[in-house]
């Protein structure tokens, strides 16, 4: 059996009971994770909005249908259905919706790995700053004050360096 969201074989079979009606879902591992995370975050937002537990989830989906990536035209609802994004810009267009999802999948929303060599110097610095700030936070938490002081100096000098060219550049 194939996964209902992608061409991979279905390995996880979820039976969901909503209002006394059982619905069957068949997913591959990745899509199941996505689905479960979404189900949870939807639940969370409903509760936050103070809606009754049996609120019509269709209206929720309709809202998501309004969210469209201006670059590739995919709606957030379509993404939720198929579990695949439409283009790299979706990560920016759906940022508010994706960040909580990424957090629940990966336990983080900050890349700490390889950076392509051709990345403009400026964004490399930005990235380095993000990384250093994270390290500073960790150093303070660990009470490694010497390391924290070193990191703070490095952050300040990087900030100074990137401040000048940055002000001349147009934001994206």
């Amino acid at each position: 059996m194939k996964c209902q969201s992608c061409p991979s074989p279905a390995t996880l079979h979820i039976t969901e009971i909503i209002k006394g009606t059982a619905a069957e879902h068949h997913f591959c591992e990745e899509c199941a994770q996505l689905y479960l995370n979404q189900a949870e975050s939807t639940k969370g937002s409903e509760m936050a909005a103070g809606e009754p537990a049996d609120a019509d989830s269709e209206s929720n989906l309709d809202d998501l249908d309004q969210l469209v990536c201006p670059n590739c035209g995919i709606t957030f609802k379509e993404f939720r259905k198929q579990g695949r994004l439409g283009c790299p810009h979706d990560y920016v267009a759906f940022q508010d919706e994706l960040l909580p999802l990424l957090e629940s999948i990966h336990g983080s929303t900050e890349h700490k790995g390889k950076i392509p060599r051709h990345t403009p110097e400026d964004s490399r610095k930005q990235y380095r700053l993000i990384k250093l700030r994270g390290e500073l936070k960790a150093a303070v938490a660990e009470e490694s004050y010497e390391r924290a002081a070193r990191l703070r100096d490095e952050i300040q000098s990087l900030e100074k360096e990137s401040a000048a060219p940055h002000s001349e550049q147009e934001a994206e």
Partner: protein
Amino acid sequence: MKLEELIQSSGEWLRGEGPEADIVISTRIRLARNLSQFPFLTRADDAARAEIERILHAQIARLTPRKALNYFDVTTLQRLDRQFLVERQLISRELAEGHGPRGVAFSNAENASLMVNEEDHLRIQVLHSGLALEECWKEINQIDDMLEEQVSFAFHQQLGYLTACPTNCGTGIRTSVMLHLPALVQTKEIQKVFQALHKIGLAVRGLYGEGSQAMGDFYQISNQTTLGKSEEALIKNLKDVIPNIIAYERRVRGEMVKENKQQLHDMVSRAYGILKSAQTITSEETMQHLSSLRMGINLGLIEGLRIPTVNELFIFTQPAHLQKLRHGTLDSSERNIARATYLRERLAEQN
């Protein structure tokens, strides 16, 4: 290189060498990349897919002097050939069964394979025999660097490499180590291993990746998350854990030998006997006996048979391989006969 030539040999990753090769079959790392100027494949029509393939094929061809890769247009391959490449771990089922322009390039030794228009525009994979995490990372990083000099991959400074599925974004890396764990399976201790691995964010899959059954007691252990840790940190996570699983498997094997050597010896000898003399045999039964045989050789209970041969038999007794060997289409019962014949021939050669 012609596809037909592949059947004459087997990939380097089956040679059964490298650290811990009695338990670790192979180490694989893959990277997911997308060209920044194109939509992901769900929103790419055939024209866009063709353009992506054209660009990546050209860049992959430029790697050739250093990496010697053979490129195949998957759309022109017969179903049997596509399945053959899946069995050899050179392409994924997704690429084999997908649609639209797509291709694969792989090295002669079958250590590197680059899939174009799979789930992402590009999936780079490096595979080595035994426990070889650093080696794989070094090689794949180098291929990625070389490609990156020529093309621009979708990258976001906070979220890293951007992938079609958010479960891969960040590093886009999946590192997996394939282990042969017959003793843990037989004693059912394997469940404890699964639970422990799950808790530390590692996934367990079967021989052919996601969704495949754990045939022949083979398990692939891999990182589940890709964002928030560096490639080296994700690799290290695996590197720290794998020796514990190896030690666990060895300990249980040791206990089995100590407590019931005769019974164990009998089991592996019977497995060998069936493989050497059966006239018709299913893939499932073959896998099960090969697994026992493999453990028997590693425990010194079976002599005159080499591990690389057994490793190869796991792959060559699969449906597409048998049909390539026999140069024809075989139905399931014909395959069972061909499989038994092939096993008898190969195992007779050894003695």
